[in-house]
């Protein structure tokens, strides 16, 4: 475990520390965001290893040095300093201790060195291939006996970095890295919930931190054994949920926006379902930050000289759509690049090969049953959502939080995509559901629990309307600022 922590801190968090500091400044989320940035850089390094030549370590060093130099240059040019409105160090430490403390109990499950089926079948072989250099990776993934060769490279790349540190004598270290990344993902979710109350009264802040710690434990509980036996489903699910919280729930700010982007990149580079969820969340974040009814467009056409000027209208429209496209494509680029690369080198997809002998109609019933059997929290979440929206909407607005419907939309769109996959995929439906639906529904499950947590913070933290966070309530919606 100590070795895995060394890899996480020295191999992933340290190279990601400066970019993370530039994004979130002195926010406690930096503890979990820095390893995420490191893991994303490792995944991009694995893409370059496969697409060009060389080894993972070579590309990782190049990317990490280039990224850090770019961030340092940006810092020098903009003369940016740590924000004055950042929380004091005591508060930073307290939040970090509660969050890390909440994870200790679930992580004691690591006392038994469990190894999931997919870890042996997919993740460890992929990790060894990435660790072996370009030729070993290419020929290994192209081998017809290799399972799911098109799976994205973040987890294998992070594990291969561990092998670069300590050799391939202990394969279990790669699995431990995955578990620690799972914890980081839940940490980002927890920090997002803690940030819901970060600018409010002392009571609101304390409640938010306690609920955030509880939510980390709930995340481990929902994933069960999958959280500690090397499966990657919790990683992409919690990363996508982190993007939902930072991009769709917390007040709009540059800091929250970039944090959401990093989470999206991690989700899209972890698993195929993660890429689908990431694209859904990205579209929603884009619609929140750049709504279809452009305020600036309206403002510009209010000027009499612009009213009949079609050039101004056209340029504003083009600019608006270009921004929206960039908001979606830039963070999704690493995930989409892997998808394209996998097709280019002929890596097969196991789920959409030969057409299924079962019709979508015959698959519909079992798929719905399978999915809903893992959404037991849904009725309670619906009830709290309806009651909260009716009774606590004003408190939510005073805290400048996004509408609760954003989270639900992300959930429902993902569930629709999941249902479509089960309906039109090629595997036998009952076998497929038996072996996957408890993992593919982790994202909506933890999203619904997170919605409950946010309503709980709002409900407990503001017993009267005047108690709502004064710092945040002054933020003009839509204007970039700090969360």
């Amino acid at each position, binding site marked *: 475990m100590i070795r895995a922590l060394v890899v996480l801190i020295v191999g992933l968090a340290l190279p990601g520390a400066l970019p993370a500091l530039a994004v979130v400044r002195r926010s406690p989320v930096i503890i979990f965001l820095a390893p995420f940035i490191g893991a994303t850089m490792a995944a991009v390094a694995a893409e370059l290893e496969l697409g060009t030549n060389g080894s993972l370590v070579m590309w990782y060093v190049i990317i990490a040095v280039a990224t850090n130099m770019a961030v340092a240059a940006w810092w020098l040019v903009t003369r940016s300093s740590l924000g004055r409105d950042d929380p004091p160090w005591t508060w930073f430490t307290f939040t970090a201790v509660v969050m890390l403390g909440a994870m200790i109990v679930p992580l004691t499950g690591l006392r*038994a060195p469990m190894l999931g089926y997919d870890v042996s079948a997919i993740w460890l072989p992929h990790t060894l291939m990435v660790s072996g250099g370009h030729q070993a990776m290419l020929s290994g993934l192209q081998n017809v006996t290799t399972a799911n060769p098109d799976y994205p490279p973040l987890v294998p790349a992070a594990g291969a970095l561990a092998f670069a540190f300590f050799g391939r004598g202990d394969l279990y270290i790669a699995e431990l890295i995955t578990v620690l990344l799972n914890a980081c993902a839940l940490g980002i979710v927890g920090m997002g919930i803690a940030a819901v109350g970060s600018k409010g009264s002392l009571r609101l802040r304390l409640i938010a931190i306690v609920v955030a710690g509880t939510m980390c434990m709930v995340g481990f509980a929902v994933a069960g054994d999958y959280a500690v036996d090397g499966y990657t489903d919790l990683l992409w699910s919690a990363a996508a949920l982190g993007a939902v919280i930072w991009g769709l729930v917390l007040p709009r700010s540059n800091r929250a926006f970039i944090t959401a982007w990093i989470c999206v990149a991690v989700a899209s580079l972890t698993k195929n379902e993660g890429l689908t969820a990431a694209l859904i969340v990205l579209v929603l974040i884009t619609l929140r930050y750049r709504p279809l009814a452009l305020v600036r467009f309206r403002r510009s056409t209010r000027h009499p000289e612009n009213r009949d000027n079609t050039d101004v209208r056209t340029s504003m429209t083009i600019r608006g759509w270009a921004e929206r496209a960039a908001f979606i494509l830039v963070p999704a680029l690493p995930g989409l690049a892997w998808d394209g690369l996998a097709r280019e080198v002929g890596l097969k997809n196991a789920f959409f090969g030969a057409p299924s002998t079962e019709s979508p109609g015959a698959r519909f019933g079992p798929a719905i049953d399978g999915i809903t059997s893992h959404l037991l929290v849904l009725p309670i979440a619906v009830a709290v959502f309806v009651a909260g929206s009716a009774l606590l909407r004003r408190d939510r607005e005073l805290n400048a939080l996004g509408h609760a419907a954003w989270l639900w939309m992300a959930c429902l769109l993902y569930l629709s995509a999941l249902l479509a996959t089960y309906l039109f995929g090629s595997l036998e439906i009952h076998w497929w559901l038996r072996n996957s639906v408890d993992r593919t529904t982790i994202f909506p499950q933890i999203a619904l629990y997170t919605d409950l947590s946010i309503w709980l913070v709002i409900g407990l933290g503001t017993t009267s309307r005047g108690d709502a966070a004064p710092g945040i309530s002054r933020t003009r919606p839509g204007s970039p600022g700090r969360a």
Partner: protein
Amino acid sequence: MARYLPRRRRRGKSRVIVNLPRAVICLVASVTLALAVHHGMEITAAERSPASVSTWKTFDRQQECIYHAIRTDLPKGASIYIDPNGGYAAQILAELSTLWAVPQPAPTSAGWKISEVPGIACSGVSLKVSRT
């Protein structure tokens, strides 16, 4: 004072009406989260039970032993066939032979056939290697 009391009582009443639904929302959310945490505690307790720890440690020893056996009994780059009907053991063998041997989809294209069999070499199992 006489005029103040009823007004205060009225205000208290309205505050209760405002806060009661809020309390219900908080109660439902708290209980649901607490039940989930309890469920998680049970899972963790099962994971770290002596039986579970012992089973997985034995499994870990077996894996390490088979990993070294593959590198001892087979030449580097050997083309191997692992019977896919071997289930989980077959997956383990494919995993542990990565970067040393090259798995083949059919025995005809492989020079060696490997399988995991009951034995004493690796804590209850052994690696069986034969020419195809």
